[in-house]
């Protein structure tokens, strides 16, 4: 089973998480392809491959993937796009959105985003189901208000029903146990987040303490466990699964 993960700085946590889980997923090979911010916009499709169109991105692809100069789409069973300005939201309890309004919002909300552009680029080359993970919900310093995640789950479900499913794609939630205040990430998972290393010697410096957008290794571990479990990959104990949702 080969999995490709494409994304920006937010894949750093997933990569760390996978490192912690890899030994428990025999026969699974995950390759990460990353570049900070919207650097992956410089990918183009050529003969079934996503190739870098500038040397900086080429270097990032090589470094983050462990030596791959391009992304051979046919070589992967599963493709995951993560972050890249794709955001998660929640529908408040008293809100109701019509299907037409939701469709319009999803179309307009993502059409200029890199995650959507990559989705459509890949879709033009393969019929494989493509998975999308949003940037982590912003961490909240305090707990406040209701702790139910129904509104967040409703948003994810609506996005799939009205927008992603017809594209043979699936929008994924972050582990619900990491969600607080209905639409934020528990501050615990924001502490000690690391930057995505994209070149030799860069190391993995930490994000500043006030960064509430990037999450740490433990968040990445839980995220990847949920993702893999959802695809029927790996064997997880009930106690571990209870940490997810």
């Amino acid at each position: 089973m080969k999995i490709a993960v494409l994304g920006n700085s937010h894949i750093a946590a997933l990569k760390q998480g996978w490192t912690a889980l890899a030994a428990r997923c025999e026969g699974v090979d995950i390759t990460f392809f990353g570049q900070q911010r919207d650097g992956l916009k410089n990918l183009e499709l050529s003969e079934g491959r996503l190739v870098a169109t500038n040397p900086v991105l080429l270097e990032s692809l090589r470094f983050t993937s462990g030596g791959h100069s391009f992304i051979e789409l046919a070589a992967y069973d599963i493709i995951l796009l993560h972050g890249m300005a794709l955001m998660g939201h929640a529908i408040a309890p008293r809100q109701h959105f019509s299907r037409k309004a939701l469709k319009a919002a999803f179309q307009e909300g993502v059409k200029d985003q890199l995650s959507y552009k990559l989705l459509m680029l890949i879709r033009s080359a393969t019929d494989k189901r493509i998975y999308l993970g949003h940037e982590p919900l912003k961490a909240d310093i305090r707990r406040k208000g209701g702790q139910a995640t129904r509104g967040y789950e409703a948003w994810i479900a609506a996005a799939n029903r009205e927008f992603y499913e017809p594209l043979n794609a699936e929008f994924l939630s972050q582990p619900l146990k990491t969600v607080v205040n209905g639409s934020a990430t528990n501050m615990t998972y924001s502490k000690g987040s690391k930057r995505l290393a994209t070149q030799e010697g860069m190391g993995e410096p930490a994000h500043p303490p006030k960064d509430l957008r990037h999450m740490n290794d433990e968040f990445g571990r839980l995220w990847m466990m949920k993702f893999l479990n959802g695809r029927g990959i790996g064997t997880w104990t009930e106690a571990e699964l209870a940490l997810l949702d």
Partner: protein
Amino acid sequence: MNPYQNLPQSSFWRPAVSDRSLFAIENLWSPKFPISGTAPVVTFGSCFAQHVGRALRDRGLNWHITETNPPGMAPETRKLFNYGVFSARTGNIYTTSLLRQWTSWALGTAVPPDECWESESGVFDPFRPAVEPGGFESREEVFASRAASIAAFKAAIVEAEVFVFTMGLTESWVNLQEGYEYPMCPGTVAGEYDATRHGFRNQDFATIHGNLTAVIKAMRGVNKNLKFILTVSPVPLTATNSGDHVLVATSYSKCVLRAVAGQIAGEFDFVDYFPSFEIITSPVFRGIFFEPNMRSVTPSGVDFVMNHFFTAHETKFGPIELPASAIKLLRRRAQELEARRFVRADGDVPRGKATGRAGNNVASGDVCEEELLAAFGGEA
């Protein structure tokens, strides 16, 4: 000695009006109560109410929106779906009886009817016929959406410090069997007109006064500190069913509404009247704030009115102190506007270009169902 000797200049026509440039006429309003920079202000009513909300937002005040659009929706689409037009997605509330109807649904003293208007393009909500372009997909969706708007309207009543209501019409359409009111005559925006089921009412002073008084008391029953600002829309009727000439019908409608607003403002110290109607329509201003059709108010007219609102407030209560978050937001908006200016300079077409759809005058920024009536009289 007589009472006139000690009156201010604003009490006398010559110094207050005749001797001044029309742009120097001032102190038309002395607000009864201050609005703080953080006070939640909600706006509902006729088309003109939209300007109040936008003006509050543009100055960093807390225009309180209780029904927000789905995240990601573009500004022009938001307007098409009636998000951010009023504080909740009620559509236009033209009459005080409609306001009373919404209030009774929100506060649970009446149950909204289960009427829907079905057509080939979709299912329409008779009480908000223009909020969903092309109509909803099903009756269930109409009811779910209406319930959300009613809940949001209730939240607006409960959470607001100031409730701004712009009175628009005296003419109304009712369901003769059930007694409830429609914002638009069935068969115009949607639905089918049936003379045996649908009746016309041109409301009189007592009816309008009674309904507005009941609304104020009901709202204060759940929010005892709620204050009100009433305005009368200066926009003439698009069409009348009264049998009178539309100009005469407009005069009747606006005069009655203006009289009720003045009466109510005199009866309650927590109700104020802001004279946007006078500022636009007074002969003193020579009609310069109207478009050539002598109906639509020009953007400069709207600015003039709203500048008057804030200047009067500042004159009486001093500058409104804005919270740091509002100042930050204003700065960001200014930067965005500047950025957009550069895009235009490059020759790129800005997003949200007006499409000219009847009843949704995007160019002027108004969403106004009543304008659709013009289609039935040959007016462009």
